[in-house]
């Protein structure tokens, strides 16, 4: 198991995880500590309990029960024994550790003036194991960027692979263009101590933790990017910042939550950007990234009919509607 994950567990948990076979280790997606409950892992989307011998089973009398000390040891290690350095991450619900892995934290909220200030009595820690998928954006690269840099909006429901595709887009485009990546939640580059844990391209400047509006303004002002990349746009301030960047000639690549074109059209702020020409292309992901549909925004009306026809085909394929 990756040393960057295992170092955040105390010897008791570590010995169990170390006993898990190599084949299973490579398929582990998550490791969860829940107070007074069995240590569990997610393996190929299936939840398994780790018993004291490192066997992954559905239920067991010999399972390892996670204690408060186990959780505290892991929490302290994740925060490098420096809670003050990770205040923002703790209130955001996760800390990125070396290797790009993310430790999600939940517990009892401490609220002051209506805002979440910190978390106490941590009851669960979820280690999500990061695995960058090289080639996730190949189809989009071929369809959208073969003739040069263009604006692109990637839409999809949760867990459809938007961030995975965006990360690979950064990696590929970041070999040819000056990219500014506004990584507000630290999910794309997974910066740890100033170093990107994921490959996001050699010409990519990462604005880690910046809110999108501030990051976009700063990027345009000081980094002279060809392309700005950001994840999950939606607010009025995001839209205003993107408009200003667009007016400076910068191409924008962004993601947005929307299950299909109809849902996307209900997002008025986003549609204003589309109408103003910020995004020449829209890619819609569905089914954990297995189906990608791209649409040129000047072919919106035709796109509705064509996508409806192809939704019933049942094939995993890329549909390109409009001018090629």
């Amino acid at each position, binding site marked *: 198991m990756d040393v960057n994950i295992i170092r955040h567990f105390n010897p008791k948990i570590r010995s169990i995880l170390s006993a898990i076979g190599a084949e299973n280790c490579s398929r582990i997606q998550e490791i969860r500590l829940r107070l007074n409950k069995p240590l569990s892992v997610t393996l190929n989307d299936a939840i398994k309990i780790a018993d004291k011998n490192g066997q992954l089973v559905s239920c067991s009398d010999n399972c390892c029960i996670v204690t408060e000390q186990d959780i505290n040891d892991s929490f302290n290690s994740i*925060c490098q024994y420096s809670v*003050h350095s990770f205040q923002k991450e703790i209130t955001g619900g996760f800390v990125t550790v070396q290797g790009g892995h993310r430790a999600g934290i939940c517990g009892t909220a401490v609220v002051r003036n209506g805002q979440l200030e910190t978390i106490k009595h941590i009851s669960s820690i979820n280690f999500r194991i990061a695995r960058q998928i090289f080639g996730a954006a190949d189809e989009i690269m071929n369809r959208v960027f073969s003739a040069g840099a263009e604006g692109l909006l990637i839409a999809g429901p949760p867990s459809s692979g938007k961030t995975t595709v965006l990360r690979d887009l950064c990696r590929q485009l970041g070999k040819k263009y000056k990219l500014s990546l506004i990584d507000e939640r630290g999910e794309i580059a997974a910066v740890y101590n100033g170093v990107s844990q994921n490959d996001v391209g050699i010409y990519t400047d990462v604005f880690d933790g910046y809110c999108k509006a501030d990051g976009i303004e700063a990027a345009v002002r000081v980094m002279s990017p060809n392309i700005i990349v950001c994840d999950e746009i939606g607010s009025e301030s995001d839209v205003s910042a993107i408009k200003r960047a667009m007016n400076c000639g910068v191409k924008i690549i962004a993601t947005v939550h929307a299950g299909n074109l109809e849902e996307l059209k209900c997002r008025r702020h986003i549609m204003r950007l589309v109408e103003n020409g910020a995004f020449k292309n829209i890619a819609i992901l569905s089914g954990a990234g297995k189906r990608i549909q791209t649409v040129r925004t000047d072919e919106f009306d035709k796109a509705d009919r064509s996508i409806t026809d192809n939704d019933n085909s049942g094939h995993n394929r890329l549909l390109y509607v409009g001018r090629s």
Partner: protein
Amino acid sequence: MITAGITGCYMSAGLRKRLMLLKAVNAMLEEISILIRYKAATVFEITEAIGKDNRFSELGFISGIKDTCTEPSAFSLRWEEAVMSYNFGSIKPQDLLFISSIGQNLGSSDIEGQLSTLALKKEELKALLAEAESDCKNKSKLYSSLGILTGAFITVLLV
């Protein structure tokens, strides 16, 4: 006579060394406050920065506190172990306890809490510093003089 004189001077130097040590601790508390306030530095970034800074050469124990890939153990324990195993030379028990206590709360609260705790530590240190300065001023020359006089007296007796 020479031996007694040297002993007197050694005790006098011990007082000065204690004062320098406590001044270095004071400067260290200030530096830690700055690192936390402006960089939200982690405890290991703090120990690394201070360990490399020549201003804190008297506090060599800090270089031994590193973030290693071994089992998790509380930072406060690592700090205490490093302090207790380091040879400070002339140091009073209360000074050792004070330096050891600095690591107790480092990293255990938010930035405001950390800065408040450090401010409290600086206040506590003031009393130790005042005592050290007073000792240095009043006793330093006394020890040197006593050492020489004692040596002379013993010499006269023997002769």
